[in-house]
């Protein structure tokens, strides 16, 4: 395996601020969209669940504080 062509060398290419070089085609649909988790069809659902779990933990810790203080 040799070095990747888009990583080194090359002539400086004029570009506008914010434009990225070496960007490839986006990830495939199967790589990006499918979570592979039962009950979670989208990543948004996974993120909401993680956020919910975080809120649950903070709530439980607040309850623990209230009960034993």
């Amino acid at each position, binding site marked *: *395996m*040799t*070095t*990747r062509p*888009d*990583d*080194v*060398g*090359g002539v*400086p*290419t*004029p*570009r*506008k*601020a*914010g*434009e*990225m*070089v*070496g*960007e*490839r085609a*986006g*990830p495939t649909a199967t*790589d*990006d969209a*499918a*979570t*592979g*988790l039962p009950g979670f069809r989208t*990543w948004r659902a*996974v*993120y909401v669940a*993680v*956020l919910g*779990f*975080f809120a649950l*933990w*903070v709530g439980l*810790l*607040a309850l*623990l*504080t209230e*009960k*034993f*203080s």
Partner: protein
Amino acid sequence: MNTLDYVVLVGTLLGIAAYGMWRTRGRRDLHTYLKGAGDTRWLAIGLSVMATQASAITFLSTPGQGFESGLGFVQNYFGAPLALLVIAGVFLPIYRRLDVYTAYEFLGRRFDQKTRLLGAALFLVQRGLGAGITIYAPAIVLSTVFGWPLNATIVCSGLLVVIYTVAGGSEAVTLTQKYQIAVIFAGMLAAFGVLLAKLPPGLGFGGALTLAGGFHKLEAVDFSFNPDRRYTIWSGVCGGMFLALSYFGTDQSQVQRYLSGASLRESRLGLMFNAVCKIPMQFFILLLGVLVFVFYQFERPPVYFNESAWRSAAAGGAGETLRAVEADFTAAHAVERQQLLAWIEARRAGDTAAVEQARAAAVAARGKVDAVRAAAKQLLAKEPGARANDADYVFITFILHYLPHGLIGLLVTVFFAAALSSKAGELSALGSTTTVDFYRYVIRREATDAHYVAASRWFTAFWGLFAIAVALLANLAENLIQASNILGSLFYGVPLGIFLVAFFLKKIGGTAVFWAALASLVLVWGLYAALNISYLWYNVIGCGACVILAAALQLALGGRSGESSRP
């Protein structure tokens, strides 16, 4: 420690290291050496991210923190899940789409060469020093407790991790971290079980929580806006998110871990695993410390947990004073114990008035115990052997005095496994960044993969030896750990500012952000020289200044700043 403990310690550490080297033998292509074979599943990534972050001090000191201050420290981690969600949703897809080896390579693609090199240089300086502290901090505690020579402890543990990290690269790091974290979990769960079994009869887990609550050890969440309070939910969510975003999102030692995933899905799930597990894990470790506190209400603890420093001071001129302090401590602790036993008895009998009376008496007695300990700490403050915080010695003292042989070896293995796993992640990242962002990008652009793998091995070895040297020098400078933390904070905010501009402010180009970053570094260093504020604030100042100055400079430069940039 007896022979069985040493067999467990040496056998486990060498076994895991040897397995990692054997499984990754003969790796010759750069992609596999720096990113792994590309088949790493989410659980291995999640454990690897966790192992890199959790160093030996996490498992040595955090129970001590729980012992001293209770559960409040858990709030420091409240920002981590939120930061990990942002990284999984925004940072990670871009890193993977660009197929970068390092986070700074992304800066090169998004901005230009000079910004990439600046980001990489800031990482190397900060993490290079940090890797030394990763070895030094547990070595000073363990060598003091066991009477091992400090320098030999530093060199042996340092060289072991250098050997397998150099030999196997990132894949070996991920592989060994999986087993090291399994040993860590097993050891901590075993300690928890033993601790519960050793609580006084009739107390139970619920009673232990009630007792700890009576001493304000279970105040996990503080909603107050009082700036004098060290840990509140607000500082935890805001400051914690800021720090976690910087650490997990822009520090190559973490970025390299989750870029090794087989797919975007595996990397994301690895991060989500940490978002879910981080708070419960820290809570569990702090709770362990709280239970050690409860345990020591019924068993007389040492006045000063760093017993080696205590013995050394007692043998010197302060011997008479320390013996008097010890006698006061024994008397105060006996009174407290008696009141607590009365409290348990009153609870069993259901006598509410007696419960309250005994609890109040125990709290008063506790005040006396704390006062004696505070006086002892003051006396020991100037003792050369008492360099580390005494709370760092609480958990290891409990382990050595109350755990059976074999389990002692397992718990000491936990501390070393944590030190090795976090240092391996750091060294691998330092080697990768030096190879990809400097050597291959600036010095030698055209070479074979075998050449770059060899270079990466040399750079990893160099950083390993550099870290060992920093750890050895730390022995000469008592406040080097704090100095290193300050240095880290003075460097950490600006790189986050660069990355936030890269991800969220698309109209700002390389020239603007580069000069803004340099100006922000100067500003942070100037403020540090002029002001006397907590060094943690410099993370916020550095990041904020970089973003604002970059936006202002871009406005002044118009559309020109990115036009001359170079991939």
